[in-house]
Structures are given as C-alpha cells and as structure tokens.
C-alpha cells in the first residue's frame, strides 16, 4: 500500500487509494466499486456469462438498473413495437428479478437515463467509485466520485466480484478561471476544452476540473461538463465536492440521513486535492473569453465559437487532420469558411444525459416562452427522467414547449443515440444538446451540430443556427443559479 499519510494527494488519488483492494507485481490493481449502474443495452451478455459460470451477483444492493437506451419516448401505455428492443428490455427485467437487482424500469416514477437518475436518487455521492457499461458514466464525477464507463466483460466482473482490475490513471487538471458571460453555459466550457485538446487529448488520463468558473456552477451544470469528459478522451472527469454538492445531495432518497449525514459531510470535506499535490498535465481556460460553441464536424472536437467560420482544410498543416476535415465537411455538406450562424436546421433535439435535466429545460423554456419554433422545424424536448418530466409539467415548462410547437416526450436517451426510432432522416441537420456528432449518430445520414440548450432553443425559433446572446432579455438568462 502507498504511503497516504503525508504526501499531498489529488482527489483522484485519494479515492483510488481508499478503494485499493490488492495490488500484485505485474498485475493491475483490484479496485472496489461502490455503485454499479446497469442498463438494457450493455448488460445482457454479462448476465449470460454469469449464468454460464454458475456465479451470482455479489452485491445486488450496490447495483441499480434502469431502461433508457432503446425504449420509446412516445406513449408509455403502448407496447414496444421493435421486437428486438422489447426483448432486450424484457431480458433486463428478467435478469434483475433473478439476481435481486433493484430496477427503475418503464412505468416506474424513478425511471430515466441512468446518468440522470443516479444523482437524482442520491445514489451518486462524493468519494465513491461508480461504473456502468456506458461511456457517459463520467457524468457522476461532478460529485467528486471516480466514475467511468466499462465494457460488458467488465460489467460481468463487477456483478460477480464488485471489483474491477484497473491501472492507476494519470491526472489532468482542467482549470477554468474567471466567470462566464450571460448566454454562455457549462456546455460551452466543455465544447471549448475538447476543441482545444482534441478527442484524444485526455487519453490515459482522468480530468479534474478546477477554478473559479467551475466552483460557480450548479450541480447540473457540473454534470454537463463531466459528462463529456469521455469526448475529450478521458474516461473520467471529476470536480471536488463543496457546499454546492452537499446542498444538492441533502435529503435525497439514498443520501445519508441524520448523524450519518454529518459524518459523511465531514469525510467528504477531506476529499479535495491537497495544496502541493501535482497533476501529470494541466491546461487553463479563461471562462470570460468563451462564446457559445457549436460543432461543425463529425467528432466533438470539431467545434467553434458561434460567431466564427467553419475552418478550411487548406489551413491544416497536418495531413491526417486535413483529410479528416475534408471528410467531415463532405459528410456535413458545409463549406470551408462559411459562417456557422445562419446554417439551416431541420430538427432541434433538447435532452440526453448531457443536457436533459430540469435546469436545462428551464433554460430552453425561457427562450421558447411566448415564441414559436420556425416553420418546418421539428423540435423534440425529451426529459432526462420521469421525475424531470413531472417537475417540468408542474412548473408549466411542458406547456411552454407545446405552445411553442415543440414535441414533449417521455424520458429516455431518444435521439441522442437513435436506437428507439427517434432519429434524423438522411441529410437532415439537427442542432442537439447531446454529446456526440459522429456520422449517423442521430440516424443514418443525419448531420448533428452540438450546442447548449440556450443555443438550441434560440436556433429552434429562427430555424437556423442562432446566437442566444442576441435574444432580447438574455441578461436574465442567468448562467448560475437554481438547484
């Protein structure tokens, strides 16, 4: 075991050291896992493997499941028409029943996208190790948890042993100084970071987001940033817990109660990185200099400030990057040097584990209130969970969306991954609050522009990519505030 008494340590190192079960020469560390999140798409083969080996689930009470990826977001009283999706959801239900795993399935008031319901239920807590067969597990890092996506073979190992074999990751500090301007949000911070370092910039590392701008963010805004750590190549991205974290967690269903709460907070206060601890790499971003960001290409690193122009392949010195840009612009059917402002959009998607929480919907609704979406534009608003849906309905946000001409759907991953029938037609342009603009991600042949909820909503009204800062009343669109 390493000496943990005197040496200054980072947040990641503290969590790692506490969860180290064993470490043998030549082998990766055995790391204990506090919480395992399970969904229908990446788990069936793992349960099949357990049965074949005659194994059981070691800690069903440290495991929790939901159905989110392949489920429809229209009327939930109807059966799932896609027979393969229906079979997959049925298998999840059968697996959870057989192994005693709590399931927040279709029809449950706590169903939702796995990375929305974990925090909402208070299951996600500081200092924990959290895994899921889903790369956006990095979301939970917003609470100061070491949370990362795993493959199905690893899902099987965690089910059987509540442990995982891992090599100690390197650390990468992303310091965001200053304050965001009105109309600029946490989504723009993470898109700007990835545009700077590229989609492989964080490979082999875990991000820790620090600095004044990060501290000023709400928990939901922090989740948006940590969620997309994987798009910068890092399996995990963390933010040290603070009073904002504790305030969010207090009173949630699975959060510690009473004396246990006080003890937990005391333990959590020791988690932040010690003064004098060092990171393997560091980058600094000036929040005040950021604009709303939009992607123009086919990976999340191909993003630009909304007032700039699409880059030209000729300006790229690296031949590989030149070819990649040429290919991306051909797929996107965008011209080198064109303004991204004014680019027409056919579909607007507001939702996902990146931006499908209540504060995201409040921002989008603040733009759409008393306005109407442009003719011919389809706007889908998909809440991240059933609880988010109920809250949005209670606050009247759903009425705002419907009155503006948007579709108000049931909770799920929906058009972020386009497994459930919610998808683009070939050639269509979508501006989306989701996390991936890969070729075909939102439907075969579909073209995705990633942006914040504010930018997506502003674009919905105009029918073209629009700068939310030009809307009247944008000063009132507080970037900070709300639970």
């Amino acid at each position, binding site marked *: 075991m390493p000496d943990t008494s005197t040496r200054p340590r980072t947040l990641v190192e503290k969590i790692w050291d506490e969860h180290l079960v064993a470490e043998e020469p030549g082998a990766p560390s055995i790391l204990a896992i506090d919480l395992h999140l399970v969904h229908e798409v990446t788990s069936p083969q793992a349960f099949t493997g357990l049965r074949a080996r005659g194994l059981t689930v070691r800690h069903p009470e440290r495991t929790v499941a939901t159905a989110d990826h392949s489920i429809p977001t229209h009327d939930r009283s109807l059966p799932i028409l896609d027979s393969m999706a229906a079979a997959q959801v049925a298998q999840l239900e059968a697996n959870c029943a057989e192994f005693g795993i709590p399931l927040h399935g279709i029809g449950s008031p706590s169903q939702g996208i796995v990375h929305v319901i974990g925090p909402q239920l208070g299951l996600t807590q500081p200092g924990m190790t959290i895994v899921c067969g889903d790369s956006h597990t990095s979301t939970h890092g917003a609470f100061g948890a070491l949370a990362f996506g795993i493959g199905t073979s690893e899902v099987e*190992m965690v089910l059987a042993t509540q442990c995982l074999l891992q090599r100690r990751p390197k650390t990468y500090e992303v310091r965001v100084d200053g304050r965001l301007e009105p109309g600029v949000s946490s989504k723009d911070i993470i898109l700007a970071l990835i545009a700077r370092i590229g989609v492989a910039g964080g490979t082999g590392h875990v991000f820790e987001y620090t600095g004044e701008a990060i501290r000023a963010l709400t928990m939901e805004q922090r989740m948006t940033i940590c969620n997309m750590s994987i798009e910068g190549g890092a399996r995990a991205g963390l933010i040290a817990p603070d009073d904002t974290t504790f305030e969010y967690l207090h009173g949630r269903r699975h959060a510690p109660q009473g004396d246990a709460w006080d003890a937990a907070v005391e333990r959590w206060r020791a988690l932040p990185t010690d003064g004098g601890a060092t990171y393997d790499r560091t980058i600094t971003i000036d929040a005040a200099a950021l604009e709303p960001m939009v992607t123009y290409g086919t990976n999340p690193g191909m993003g630009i400030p909304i007032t700039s122009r699409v880059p030209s392949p000729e300006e790229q010195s690296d031949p590989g990057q030149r070819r990649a840009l040429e290919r991306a612009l051909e797929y996107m059917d965008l011209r080198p040097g064109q303004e991204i402002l004014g680019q027409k959009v056919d579909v607007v998607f507001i939702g996902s584990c990146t931006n499908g929480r209540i504060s995201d919907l409040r921002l989008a609704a603040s733009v759409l209130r008393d306005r109407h979406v442009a003719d011919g534009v389809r706007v889908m608003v998909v809440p991240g969970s059933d609880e988010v849906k109920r809250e949005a309905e209670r606050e009247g946000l759903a009425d705002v969306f419907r009155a503006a001409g948007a579709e108000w759907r049931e909770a799920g991953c929906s058009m972020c991954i*386009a497994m459930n029938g919610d998808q683009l037609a070939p050639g269509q342009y979508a501006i989306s609050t989701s996390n991936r603009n890969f070729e075909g991600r939102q439907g075969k042949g579909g073209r995705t522009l990633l942006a914040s909820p504010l930018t997506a909503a502003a674009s919905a009204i105009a029918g073209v990519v629009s700068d939310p800062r030009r809307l009247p009343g944008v000063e009132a669109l507080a970037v900070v505030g709300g639970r």
Partner: protein
Amino acid sequence: MTVAEPYAAFTSKVVPLPAENIDTDQIVPARYLKVTDKLGLAEALFRDWRFNENGSLREPRFVLDRPEMAGRQILLAGDNFGAGSSREHAPWALTSWGIRAILSTGFADIFRSNSLKNGVLPIVVDRARHEALFDLVATDPEAELAVDLEAQTVSLPGGETFAFDVDPFARLMLLAGTDEMGYLLRHDPEIATWETNHAARVDSRLPAVG
C-alpha cells in the same frame, strides 16, 4: 468467457484504414446494439460505410468488402481508433469478421481495454513506423506481417522486426486464453477483508418513494 483460445502467433496480410478518430458508432452503429448475445455482428461491422440504404454494397467498395481483403486478420488504422462509446460490440464485431490485431498510433482507453478482453490485440506504433506501414501496404498490398505476442514483435517482409509494448497482465491472459474473472475470484479473501473495513456507501434497495 470471452477469450476461447490461447492467442497464438500468426501471419496475415493487412487491411488499411487510414481515417483518424474512428469511433465505435462507425464500427457498430447503435441500431445493432439491440442484440442480447455476441453473435452475428460481422454484418454490422462498419455497416454504414459498407452498405447503401437498400442493403447493397457501396461503390467503390469499402476496404473490408474488396475481394482480396477476405481472411485478413490485421487492421492498420488511423490515430485514436475506437473513440467514443464503450460498446464491447465493437471488438465482438471485429473478431466476428476475423480481425485479431490492430496497428495504430493510438487507441481510445475503453476500446483498448475491451479489445484485450476479446482476443483483439491493439498494437501502438510511433508515427514514423505508422507512415512506413501505410507506405508498405500501398506499395505491396499483399505484404504479410507476422504478429508474435509472446515475443512482443511484429515482423515485416524481408525480415525486419519491431517490438511493441503491451500490458504484461493482458498479455498473460491472452497467451493463456483465459480472462480476468478467475484472477478476481481467487482474490475473494482480500475483497472480503476490504469490505469488512469499508462500510457500504449506498443501499440501492431502499423502498421507492411514490
């Protein structure tokens, strides 16, 4: 139980795929993730780069569908192969097609981990070597490489050999044809001790609140 056989040395011609940052959504589009087993994913592999809407092969054909590529086991890919989604369907599909090793300047972390658990060996080479390999297969598309995991070497036509790094533990697992589950299960006493010393952080079975 993913790795069925010991990973033996082999010789193969090369499938060149120079694009960078190929994400796992391209390797297996999401609509093919509704399966509940690992079989039959070869037809999903690079589906939208290979097939038209009506199911016919695209022209010009994607590299995997050129007749001379059939049976090749080595993929030579652009930087940061396997980015994005954690779907293990990506290596399942690659092995279904027959790929056993991928050479690139870099791999995404989760893809690398998933590949090593499924008998797909990710081999990282430096930029100069990467360019030289693409030059080699451009000059001689029939060139054969010999991959020897035990020796951690790749041999080129003409006898030149270069060494590569691989996680020593993953190498042992591949050579033995086993996976990590047995290793973890053998450490049950240490796991039990850790659990005795560390209280559970959550109980996910708490009753639902209406």
